[in-house]
């Protein structure tokens, strides 16, 4: 991947990942990268050092989103926004252990995505 990545989207629903990516690119001129696997997410986060990470919990591959986030946290200071349709108590407890993270329940409104980007990325209001 060439150049700096502003936002990393880790999502196994490709359409959703493309939609967010295209929206942030059109709206804020942000450079986005997306992947469906936790292993790839760790690699991109380490090499690209994005400003923000959107992280699904159920992913392709052996690693889930929380496991990927725990590794990323050791290598990057980027805030991690978890997005999942499975908002159970156990999942929330696991997420609490990941420092500097927030939690969104799917379906996620695009306005909330914008709020997160404005909060953590240096973009025009």
């Amino acid at each position, binding site marked *: 991947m060439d150049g700096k990545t502003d936002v990393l989207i880790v999502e*196994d*629903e*490709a*359409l959703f*990942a*493309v*939609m967010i*990516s*295209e929206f942030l690119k059109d709206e804020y001129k942000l450079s986005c990268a*997306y*992947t*469906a696997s936790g292993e790839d997410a760790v690699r991109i986060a380490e090499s690209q050092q994005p400003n923000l990470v959107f992280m699904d919990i159920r992913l*392709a*591959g052996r690693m889930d989103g929380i496991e990927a986030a725990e590794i990323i946290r050791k290598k990057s200071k980027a805030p991690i926004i978890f997005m999942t349709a499975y908002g159970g108590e156990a999942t929330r407890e696991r997420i609490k252990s990941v420092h500097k993270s927030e939690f969104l329940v799917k379906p996620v409104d695009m306005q909330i995505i914008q709020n997160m980007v404005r909060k953590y990325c240096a973009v025009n209001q």
Partner: protein
Amino acid sequence: MFAHNGESFQDYISEIYFDRGGNILFSYQAKKTAKPDIIRISRQLSADAQRSIQSEDFKPPCFSPIFFYNDFPAIGMTYPVYLNGIHQGDLVSIISLNRLISRYVESMKSGKTGQAYLYDDSGTIIFHHRPSFIRTNIFNLKIDKHDNFQDFVRESFTNLSGKSSYRYFDNFESKSVKRKLAVWNTIKTGDRRLILALAAPDAEIEEALSDLRLQRTLLSILLISMFAAFIITASYNRHKLLVENARALENLVNKKSEELSAKEMRYRTIFEESPISLLEFDLSQAKEFVDKFERHNTLPIETFLTGNSPIVREILSRIVIVDANKTSLQMFGFESKRDFIEKFPLNESSELESSLIIGISRLKQNLFTTELETVFNLKSGKTIFARLFGTIVPGHEKKWSQILVSITDITTIKNSEERLLISLSEKETLLRELYHRTKNNMQVICSMLALQSATNCNEDLRSAFRQMENKIHSMALVHQKLYQSQNLSSINLRDYVHDLVHHIISSYEIYTGRIKTNLDIENISVLLDIAIPFGLIISELISNSMKYAFPGKDSGEIDITLRREDDDTITLIVADNGIGPPPQFDVRENGRMGMKSVIALAELQLQGSYSVSGINGFVNRVSFKDRLYKERI
């Protein structure tokens, strides 16, 4: 088995050891196995010895009269073997006297006309230098009418040894009456006697008294006596050895019997106390019955028996239950083993008949270990489902005479299975209903979008609505195919692609009848995980061709190919013969959101590959593995 203590077998014709049942435990015949006639003679000797023992105060060995075997004199000696006062068997030896005679008697002569006689206590002549005398009785022997030879003979039977003179008329030489002197000695062999005599003219005897030859003759008599004594001693030694062997054998048998008894007790306890129900069956009568029918029947046994309930019941009635352990009694509600054995089985259900048919059929195919499920009635009247494990005890395969069966009550498992099957069926119904409702809801959304599109005159918006509707329809169609499928988890892509392509093409009304689609779709089924992104991809690619490939054209073609590669890879090719992409067009850089979605769906969601070529239209190739769902798990 029997040691000979250095004795030579040369003196023995045979040795046979009979047990008290008359079976041969050991046999020896010089240079070969015992011939039938030798066995017959020996068996007779053994029987004679037994009679002697019972009728007289007899001490073994028992000697037979001397008899002739193959024209040579022989004597039989029988040693009954006793252990703790119980008769164990008899060792019968047949000893050749030929060697003894040739060694000592044959060369005996005294003076010019002295003659040696060897005869037994019945008077049978064993040896004489005139072969014609042999096997005749000495009491019938007359030298001439004047002699008193028989006086000497009678005296030799009265005294064990001695000498006696008798007259004889010499026919051969001087024809005058002469006197002969006979000396004899008796060889005792058990209760039998063998008499060796030497007769010669007085003068020759007197003359020979100082002759070394007579000394040698007398020495010979002594040696013969010693030889006989030797045979007897050796026989006693053998008898002693036999007794020792028999005692050792008895000890071994007692020890083994005790061990066997302990083992039997152990296995009996294991059988009786086993927490698993164990039964022993004898199916030999049932097999005879089945064999009888099979001889007159060409059908396979299972086919023949199925539907032939009377015969199956007859087979069932011929099955004998030999034993049952405690757990079996408890399982079926019996306290008495006899009661259980008499009444088992308590029912003749169709399930029992079916399992019996299967069991018989497997046994007929030489499958001697088998597993069956059936239904039994308990004494209480309750019915149980049971699993039977049966095996034929080795050695009983031919007659089916010993079969071990364990019975497990699987009623709880069966009931659970039944409940699970009902539950599964309910879940299937619910899932089918869910797919149906999802598809209906999606179709409602499609209808709303179509309605909205129709009321809006902005072409861009109408196009966006149409694309959205096509995408949702592609997903709705997957759910429709799912609830129509057998297993509720996979759909056939051939049917799906045909329906989807037809719907998308129809949605572009302006191209109605102008765009031809060529479908070459293999019969491939995929799981839901793949079907949804696959549907979105194909929907996007066809929509793309419809929108951009044929501007201002009257006609066009779209080829859609789907095939399975050798390595379980599925490849989709969507190619149009339209205007193709603009020069320098990079679909990854310049593609719109729709194309980026295709790439993301192919590469991220399906973990496959996407490629494009722009020669002679626009050709899209998507490849992915159809085992993606399993790999993800």
